[in-house]
């Protein structure tokens, strides 16, 4: 089967739905591909509130947010194909897609890659010990509990204080699982402050900062884990081991953008300009497949921007604009986009590597903003005016840095 469209969007989560909606609204013939049976992505299993405060100015659950976005998408008139997995992306441009209908070849003028992220699993942590049943990533545990109605265990410890880990500590606690604590290797929590308060402190769940799992115990099913304190370099301090008898270990140790079928096209990693356009001009990126964001509202906004840009590219085939590269300076751990298009407004998203109180964010010499407090868990958004981006164009590259007071 062969389908020809202007814009194909891969991924039916918040970023992809927003991108397909915006592309269709811009008049492009748009197809959205989702590998699962349902649209919504990870939102479907996020049954807690806290979504939509920016986009809809009210507090929604994940499924409610997904439902609103899906309604907008349907009104915009994009075609949707779920149960469709992208196998390969050829530079023609053409996608090979597997589905119950057979293998589908999708010819498109532009692609928005919004395939989300995968969870960092247990294996790469190289934690010694047994390999019993009872070790789950937080997203999988969340899916088991919230989608399948299944309880992974009775006594759990959470490794990693990312937002999903914190949310799952509360969720498991509310379902009667004894959550003995959350261990975090860093000296500060990985998730949003509001989640530390609302998911741990409100329920008396201890947070062990500067701790990691030193050993896994158990035969066939997990019987316990040993936690150990770590020093400034993250190395275990011997003599600080503590044993916890648990049958479940939930991991929230990071998300990794899913870009698998595109890897060969981007051997040095993905970089985008402020249109979210990559070095391959017909490929645009959005959402957690580009960078891990905190808020679905941000993801949807970026999705719309990427979808609009892709539609414009498909319709007009403009040459890829020359751009000003952005460089991560001091105290910048994460920065997207990677280039600015002069004369266009731009939104920059940055993350600091460690908590900072009283600091100034600078973009070369054209933008400066003071902050009372900056935290790694909370991405900062900077809006640059068209004038500012023009002014930056006189530089070979623009440094973005966070200067402590």
């Amino acid at each position, binding site marked *: 089967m062969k389908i020809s469209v202007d814009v194909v969007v891969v991924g039916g989560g918040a970023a992809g739905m927003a991108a397909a909606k915006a592309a269709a609204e811009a008049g492009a013939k748009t197809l959205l591909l989702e590998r699962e049976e349902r649209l919504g992505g990870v939102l479907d299993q996020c049954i807690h509130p806290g979504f939509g405060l920016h986009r809809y100015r009210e507090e929604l659950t994940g499924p409610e947010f997904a439902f609103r976005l899906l309604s907008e998408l349907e009104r915009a008139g994009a075609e949707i194909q779920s149960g469709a997995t992208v196998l390969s992306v050829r530079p023609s441009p053409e996608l090979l897609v597997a589905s119950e209908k*057979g293998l589908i070849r999708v010819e498109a003028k532009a692609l928005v890659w919004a395939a989300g992220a995968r969870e960092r699993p247990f294996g790469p942590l190289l934690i*010694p010990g047994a390999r019993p049943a009872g070790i789950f990533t937080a997203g999988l545990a969340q899916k088991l509990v919230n989608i399948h109605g299944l309880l992974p265990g009775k006594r759990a410890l959470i490794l990693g204080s990312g937002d999903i880990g914190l949310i799952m500590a509360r969720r498991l606690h509310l379902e009667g699982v004894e959550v003995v604590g959350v261990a975090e290797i860093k000296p500060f929590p990985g998730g949003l402050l509001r989640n530390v308060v609302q998911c741990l402190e409100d329920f008396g769940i201890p947070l062990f900062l500067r701790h990691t799992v030193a050993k896994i115990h158990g035969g066939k099913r997990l019987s316990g884990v040993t936690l150990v304190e770590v020093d400034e370099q993250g190395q275990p301090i011997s003599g600080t081991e503590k044993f916890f008898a648990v049958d479940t270990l939930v991991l929230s140790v990071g998300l990794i953008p899913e870009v698998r079928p595109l890897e060969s096209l981007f051997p040095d990693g993905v970089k985008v300009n402020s249109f979210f356009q990559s070095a391959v001009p017909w490929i645009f990126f959005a959402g957690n497949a580009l960078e891990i964001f905190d808020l679905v509202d941000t993801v949807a906004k970026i999705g719309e921007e990427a979808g609009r840009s892709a539609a414009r590219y498909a319709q007009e085939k403009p040459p890829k604009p020359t751009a000003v590269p952005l460089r991560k300076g001091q105290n910048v751990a994460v920065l997207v986009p990677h280039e600015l298009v002069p004369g266009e407004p731009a939104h920059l998203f940055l993350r600091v590597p460690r908590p900072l109180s009283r600091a100034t964010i600078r973009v070369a010499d054209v933008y400066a903003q003071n902050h009372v407090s900056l935290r790694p868990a909370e991405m900062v958004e900077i809006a640059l005016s068209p004038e500012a981006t023009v002014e930056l164009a006189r530089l070979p590259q623009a440094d973005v840095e966070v200067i402590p007071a």
Partner: protein
Amino acid sequence: MRIAVIGGGVVGSLIARELARYDAEILLFDREVEVGFGVTKANSGIIHAGFHDEPGTLRARFCVLGNALYPELAEELEFSFRRTGALVLAFDAEEEETLKRLWEQGEANGVPGLALLSREEVLAKEPEVNPAVRAGLFAPTVGITAPWEVAQAAAENAQANGAEFHLGEEVFGIEVKNGRVQALRTQKGLYFVDAVVNAAGLFADRISEMAGVPFPTLIPRRGEYILLGEPAGNLVHSVLFPTPSPVSKGILVIPTVDGGLLLGPTAEDLPPEAKEATETTSHGLSQVLRGAGKLVPKLPLNQALKTFAGLRPEPENGDFVVGPTKVRGFYQAGGMRSPGLTAAPAIAQFLAHEVIAPDLALKKKTAFNPKRARIPRAAELSEEEWEKLIREDLRWGRIVCFCNTVTEAEVVEAIRRGARTLDGVKFRTRAGFGRCQGSFCMAKIMAILARELGLGPERITLRGPGSELIFGKVRP
């Protein structure tokens, strides 16, 4: 005639298949719920050439013979096998001397194609090897396989030819009367048999004792590994060995049949009773990193998928225990230390055709089918072939494992062929073996297992009873 094989690893499964060529009733017993879940599952997967083993040992003999059998066996049984060749690397003058000794030993054992290579020749073959290398021994017949696939394939083929597999059934006793095997006992009952083959891996000593036959003490030798996912396997072409020490072949860098790279194993002798001590240790894993890093300095450790440990049954006297015993009808295929995987097909042929068949006057069946077809892998099919399968059964169009592109149809077929656990599905289809390590597909595979086996989700296990994955419903 009724023959029981105890142990459903590579060795036991291949023996059952060879015996299935005869007009006899073959029963295979394994305490695990699936074949290949013991020593076979956590193994380097190397088909050795035979230069590591001292001439005159059973190891040397069966290793060279077994290696030669693999290509045809892999074709008949459709398991993954590739002759990659191997390089043993020397980093100082003393090691260079050892290489020469290994070459002589290999020649004495009849290993084909061995060649001593200069530093330049080594680096031309394997540019990622540590440039401090001084010389290498090249062995073209070394290959790689997925050991569990060998056991699964042999088991399927044995069953197709009439063998009966009793999995999840542990042998508790062997009855011997007048110096002859009579029966064996499992938790399910008593089975009268004419012969018993002991291929019980780490437990071969206990099984032998049940028959009143002495067995050398089996020392579980723990080997820890780190597995890197594809495309890390592209880094090297052949299996890389350090120069061996008197006790071990050392820590290797091994390309896997899936395009990954396996680093290891360590060699740590545990007390004889530690038959299930498969945990990894921090000192073991750092030893693996050091050892592998010496051979290939630029290892992409960010592609690490998992760490694991396996136990090799190391007989006190250092050699395989193969053949008849003082108890008539009781045969040994134990002490399968390295190179047990390589030797297994040769040992199976030897025991079946040269020992057991003449002993019991067995006659060949006319209708033995040596062929077994593997589960088709959608990801490896041509577009036309895949399209055709989807038209016939739309489950071929439902991708369950995104990382390795495994369809629902493959998972269902794996269950039809004997997968009962999450690991069983994983080791047959590669679903859950990829970079997400199952976080996307585990819930789906659990649901498919529950549906196909007619079990509640709380009874689905990782690798057998006791390893249940969930504790029940959120709400009753």
